[in-house]
């Protein structure tokens, strides 16, 4: 049975040679093609229509408040960047929400003006719903009226949540809507506690 072609040593040798060659090939290719998530995300998602926009600079994440998608809040701040345009500084928050059931991870990007803590724009950039485009439209509609967020920013005084309670509009796509809702709550929470420095805890 152990003829030359099948001897243990030869088999293990051939296997490890192939494995090492594959490993090396990938090890060499990977750093070249590696795209740092933040750089890629910024180029894809962070575009804010404002006159003489500066360059988005990544601000390091305060991991204590950023949270993870798996924790109770169901959303996490995955990237924070800052941009100087003229005299106004803008903050960009990239929020990733939890995947549940058929809805995979969604990504939202929200821009605030530092001077008056006003939410300038909120967009759903990665639509995780597998139900095709129709869930996106209903979610976008929902995020439109949730975007009355500006009134909320004024009332962000409580450390954690919005002050006024509101219910999610019943527009089908409940999974997507909860994701939108979680995203806005996490953004408010992070902005209030880290950027506004009101972090009581």
């Amino acid at each position, binding site marked *: 049975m152990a003829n030359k*072609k*099948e001897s243990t040593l*030869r*088999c293990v040798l*051939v*296997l490890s040679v*192939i*494995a090492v060659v*594959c490993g090396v*090939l*990938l090890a060499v*290719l*990977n750093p070249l*093609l*590696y*795209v740092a998530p933040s750089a*890629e995300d910024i180029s*894809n998602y962070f575009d804010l229509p404002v006159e003489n926009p500066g360059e988005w600079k990544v601000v390091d994440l305060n991991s204590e408040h950023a949270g993870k998608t798996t924790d109770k809040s169901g959303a996490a701040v995955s990237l924070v960047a800052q941009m100087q345009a003229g005299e106004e500084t803008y903050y960009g928050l990239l929020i990733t929400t939890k995947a549940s059931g058929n809805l*995979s991870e969604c990504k939202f990007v929200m821009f605030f003006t530092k001077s008056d803590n006003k939410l300038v724009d909120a967009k759903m950039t*990665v639509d995780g719903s*597998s*139900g*095709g*485009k*129709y869930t996106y439209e209903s979610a976008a509609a929902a995020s439109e009226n949730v975007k009355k967020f500006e009134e909320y920013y004024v009332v962000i005084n409580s450390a954690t949540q919005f002050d006024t309670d509101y219910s999610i509009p019943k527009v089908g796509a409940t999974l997507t809507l909860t994701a939108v809702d979680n995203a806005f709550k996490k953004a408010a929470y992070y902005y209030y506690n880290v950027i506004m420095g009101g972090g009581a805890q």
Partner: protein
Amino acid sequence: MKNKVKDLALDGVLRQNPTLKLVLGTCPTLALTTAAMNGVGMGLAVTFVLMCSNVIISSLRNIIPSRVRIPAYILIIATFVTIVRMFLNKFAPTIATAMGPYLPLIVVNCIILGRAEAFASKNPVLDSMFDGIFMGLGFMLAITLMGAFREILGAGAIFGVKLWDFKIEFFTHASGALFTYAIFIALFTYFSGLYSKKSKQKTLQKDKKEVEA
């Protein structure tokens, strides 16, 4: 050499179409055919991986001992899939996210390992390369057609371009995928059955004529 290529081409796309005749690689077919664009992207990725792995495997076929055959083949296939994943992440992130979890699953796509074992490990390099290309194209053709079918009915659009507002949600769901796949296989067997019966009749008549002549 010329008819060998034609023969492999016919095999890959028509006679032995991996998705419709051998019913291999069903997992990505069902999951990704929500849009024709996905079909094209997936098809290209599979064709690339299939071609490269067929070439490498058939060039190494005498070196790899038969007992560790499967792990070795899978290593080679996995390397190419990772390379595709890296290139896609860097140069075409939108397609990468669209394919999502199904990109790594090309590795266990039954077509690739199936062809590697059935064809590449027994035939010379050039034939394996052509076989890889045509099998990949056959797969791509099938899933793009299915993708278009489901996109037109399910989302009222084709290649992302909105056609009309009439939508049947059924086709975007999982069960719609199975339904479409069943119809496509039935149509394929029907027509190929028709074709082979006609060709069988033709050969019979030809034999009779020779006998009389």
